[in-house]
């Protein structure tokens, strides 16, 4: 892949990708790091795609993987240091987002990783089952069942918080 094509892709999708990453890792700085790492890797080792139209899905999947790695690193780091709340689901965010949104994000954060990723891809990027499946690397049937369980769990957690 040529650098101009990559530059164009970056310009077009960087905000959307950083926002996707923010919803998964919780803070902008980490999200920007994740996306920049992805584009650095794309320059160092361009993907061999037969269909260029699949590039956005490929980059989303790479960002998703980058977020997983960032969370994994964070878990290891938090094992040795004081835990901190990333801004998106911290108490301070309620000022910016409103209390109801903060509760939803806090409940989302407590879901298992796969359920959280599926909900973000569906309800933020508005991807259909097949697209979510492609980005997450799972089958569409699994996406559907994950989604049902994720919404039920989210509802349950929100109900607990509201009580």
């Amino acid at each position: 892949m040529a650098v101009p094509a990559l530059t164009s892709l970056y310009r077009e999708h960087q905000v959307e990708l950083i926002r996707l990453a923010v919803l998964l890792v919780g803070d902008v700085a980490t999200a920007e790091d994740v996306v920049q790492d992805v584009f650095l890797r794309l320059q160092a080792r361009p993907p061999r795609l037969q269909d260029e139209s699949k590039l956005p899905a490929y980059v989303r999947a790479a960002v998703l993987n980058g977020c997983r790695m960032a969370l994994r690193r964070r878990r290891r780091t938090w094992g040795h240091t004081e835990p901190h709340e990333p801004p998106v689901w911290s108490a301070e965010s309620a000022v910016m987002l409103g209390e109801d949104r903060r509760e939803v994000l806090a409940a989302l954060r407590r879901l298992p990783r796969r359920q959280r990723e599926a909900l973000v891809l569906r309800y933020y990027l508005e991807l259909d089952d097949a697209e979510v499946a492609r980005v997450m690397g799972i089958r569409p049937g699994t996406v559907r069942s994950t989604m049902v369980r994720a919404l039920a769990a989210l509802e349950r957690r929100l109900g607990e918080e509201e009580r």
Partner: protein
Amino acid sequence: MKDLEDRLREALRAAAETVDETRSRPLPELGAGAVRSRWWEAHRRLTPVLAAAAVVLLVGGVVSVRELLHGGGRRPVQQAGSAMPRFFVTSVLAGGGQRSRLEIRDSGTGRVLDAEPAAPGVDYREVAAAADNRTFFAISEPRTGGRCRIVIDRLSVSEAGIITQRDPVVGAKVPGTVRDSGSLAVSPNGKMLSYGAGGCSAEARAGGGDGIFGVIDTGTGQRWEWPDSGGGTYRGMSWSGDGRYLFFVRAVMRNKGRQEVIERQELRRLEVTGRVRGEVKEASTLIRGVDAPRRFAGTAAGRDGREVTISESGREAEDAWSGVPGREAAGEAASARPWAESTLRADAWASTSLLGDLLRISVADGRVLRASTQRGTATFDHPLLKGDVSGRFLLTDLGALDTAGGGTAHPIAGLAHVFDADW
């Protein structure tokens, strides 16, 4: 649920919008080391391969140096011993227009997997198998006249049972003649070979006189021989699983009364690690002895050298006695020993051509720990008894015997008309 989905959608959008879309974030570019990084990215998969190759080279180098320091001797890996050995080797004498040969056979089917012919005019005789079941040894000697010399060859066999190498063992060209069966055995690690042979004097070549009993280090070719002023001959050799003890049968002629001379066979154990010098009788420990027509067909040592399985035939003779260390030296007369009658089947003693009794003997006091009878006519001119490294499986005239599985032999094709076999 619709309400929940809307709340979720709204919360996600609001959180996402905390990212300032107007902020300038130029495309990150590879730095000064980009070329190197690209090369490294392209070739980093080679790293584990190169690391593995380096380790292999290092280990190979260490092994090679060790081999050089120890005279190039091979050290087969000891077999686990939980299953029957995969192959067995047989020696076939010349005949029917064919040369003598060694055959590698499949233990399950008896099928010949590969064969190695002897040089013209030479016969392969005794064979022995190391514990790895891939290294075999064989004694060869000239068929008629010629030089009074035996040669011990080593055979290496692949995982498929194909002979990959045959070479003479360093220092294993020994003056002497093959006189008795089971006169070759190899320690489980393949490092030490024990052999028995007749001397080269006219008397010895006629079947009497001096015998030779020795051990060879297959790596260095160093040889130790124990003299025997009693004129003993040696057969039925086997090594304990730990390679410390060598069991063998020593046959000597002794006077019985004024007129009669009979053969006495002694089951003995020699601790090889100590390499006690001197006469065989002094260097080794007597475990058990029988007088003709009783005889020991062979021995199969246990793993730790505290037990040994022997095949004993000719029970109609009543003069079996148990030799206890020191007893013979004290001049005690041989006395009849009560056998474990209750454990032996009375109908098994019709002929000495039967394989006979398999007796598991305690080395410490010569007691019979377990006895079973193997019925059937020996296919060899001498009964065959070879153990594997585990001490559990025995190769006999009647086939493979799992001593832990009830003692019934599993027939193996290919044992008829061979001179010797081992696994």
